[in-house]
């Protein structure tokens, strides 16, 4: 589904990604872990198409298409969804309005029929249950005045409505209490399917108790320095990140 080959990216003159290689197949859950400043969020932003990042080398193939050539909106319409680390507050735009517009724009792009008001309402009511989101949040402005947990749940709710093929969760767990974490993880798990893939970016192993990854990668200093099964996450939890910073350790492993 997604193949990242030797991806280099800069912010300004500073190189953040220094040759990322990653292959994600449909049905898989990949976790990307690593210390802060390693390039995890940059990778998410580059995949979503955020301005301000310059890809200097490498390519990203998504379902046979050159992803980097697509506009952010076309990436979304092709089925990529980024759950933001810091969801933006948009005063004056209601959650419902955002979702309805987004869903219909995506459907239009795919040549599918747009939903009418009733169908849309039925859909969102059903999807709200997945993340146990309070109904009053629907008519409120996007993320405005939401608590940290509500913002993160709202991201997963949007994901549940838009049904992406590839979901990228950028530190969706950070700042969540254990109840909110369970709800978020539960939402992600319910949406898992053979056709969909998920990339979970996290700093902590905790989330992976609930969202069990097929592959765990360690991103450090702009490169994936280690990949392994889910037990790698536990090892990281136990030892911290210091050992991966030492190249000798990595070879021994």
């Amino acid at each position, binding site marked *: 589904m997604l193949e990242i080959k030797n991806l280099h990216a800069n912010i300004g003159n500073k190189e953040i990604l220094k040759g990322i290689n990653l292959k994600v197949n449909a049905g898989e859950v990949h976790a990307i872990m690593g210390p802060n400043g390693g390039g995890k969020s940059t990778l998410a932003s580059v995949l*979503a*198409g*955020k*301005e301000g990042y310059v890809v200097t080398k490498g390519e990203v193939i998504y379902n046979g298409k050159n992803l980097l050539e697509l*506009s*952010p*909106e076309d*990436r*979304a*319409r092709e089925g990529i*969804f*980024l759950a*933001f680390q810091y*969801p*933006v507050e*948009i*005063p*004056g*735009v209601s959650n419902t*309005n*955002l*979702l309805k*517009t*987004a*869903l219909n*724009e*995506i459907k239009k*792009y795919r040549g599918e029929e747009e939903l009418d008001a009733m169908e849309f309402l039925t859909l969102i009511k059903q999807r709200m249950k997945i993340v146990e989101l309070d109904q009053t949040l629907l008519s409120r*402005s*996007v993320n405005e005045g939401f608590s940290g947990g509500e913002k993160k749940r709202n991201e997963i709710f*949007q994901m549940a409505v*838009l049904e992406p093929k590839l979901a990228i969760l950028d530190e969706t767990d950070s700042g969540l209490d254990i109840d909110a974490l369970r709800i978020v993880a539960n939402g992600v798990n319910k949406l898992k399917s053979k056709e969909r893939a998920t990339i979970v970016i996290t700093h902590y192993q905790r989330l992976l108790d609930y969202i069990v990854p097929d592959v765990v990668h360690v991103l450090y200093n702009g490169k994936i320095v280690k990949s392994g099964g889910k037990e790698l996450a536990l090892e990281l939890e136990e030892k911290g990140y210091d050992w991966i910073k030492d190249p000798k350790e990595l070879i021994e492993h």
Partner: protein
Amino acid sequence: MSQILDLKNWYLSNFKSFEHSLNGESNHPIHALRKQAIERFSELNFPTTHDEDWKYTNISSLLKYNFKPSVGRYKLKREQITSLLFGDMKCSLLVFINGHYSEALSDVKNFSKGIIAGSIEAELKNNSEILYKHFGKYADYKEQIFTALSTAFTKDGAFVYVPDGKIVEDPIHILFVSSSENENIISQPRNLFIAGKNSQVSIIEHYAALNEDVYFTNSVTEIYTDENAVVDYMKLQEESKKAFHVSRIEVSQERNSNFTSHSISMGSEISRNDINAKFNNDGGESTLNGLYILAGDQLFDTHTLIDHAKPNCNSHEHYKGILTDKSRGVFNGKVIVRPDAQKTNAFQENNNIILSDGALVNTKPQLEIFADDVKCSHGATIGRLDEDALFYLKSRGIGEEKSKIILLHAFASDIVKTIKVEAVKKYLEAILENRFQHE
């Protein structure tokens, strides 16, 4: 300078023919006021950017034209103004063509006894006592040349009178439509709205044009809100993009009266708007909201003044602007809190979004506070569309253009949603939708 002197002579000589056209009316008590005003007009100068109050607003292009005072009765068909009405909103409609009342197009409801909505000209003919009590009392012509000009040419305009204790259920829509057919006309409506004690009324002053003509609207509106009166006022300015619009609104508020205004501006090449509210007694509340949407070479200038002369009054002021191309916006919000005016609450905010490199806003809060137990605040922002919000919307599959429209709508919605008349809100929503389609 010589050119401007010529222009003054132009209006002075036009005054003579205006006087002539009045025939018997020149014995009318109001004529003494006209004469004093034209006298004062001859002494005053048109403002230049050297005047502090006009620092950012260069009106030399307005002064290039010899605008002809509009005379006689212009006629329009009902179909020509249908698109300027607010759907099938229940209202009283007063229509003015080039500043003159059109009885044929107006549609005034059967009001309960004593309520009047009609033309100033008719009121002058009736020698209405209530008119004399208020006319010219709030918009002083002595210091402002455009008010002097307006006062000198007093002829017509809208008149609304709501006696004590009366409530006007449906809004009064006053439509000033310009149809000058390349004649470079000046229209000078003089409006007077009087709300008696415990009365309530909603008035929409609406300026629009049938063609993209060059003309000049110089309007003066005086509003008097007596004790405990509630007045909801809106000015919707959709003049031709080549027109000039100078307007002055003076609000005089008595004890516990409540005045709300929305000033929505989209038209005119140059528009200058002065809106001043004064609390004459305790407990008044005044809300001045505004939205200006500018493109091309448009220049919009609003100067507001809220005079907290008495204690325990509240004022809220929120103006928002969206500017693109090479348009210019000027906002000057002055609040005076006089020594007596303890327990004053005065809040002011001006936010602007600039969509192009060439657009510019000058915004200036001006608080003069002479009392010590008050709450006052002001804020001003000038910025671009929030890039993070834009990316967020795009990342959900919404196209660039649509995302911008959504954000601009959201920005404007703060002001639009506070409009009380639902049909007007809808009318405005439709305009905004169109207007932002190509930004």
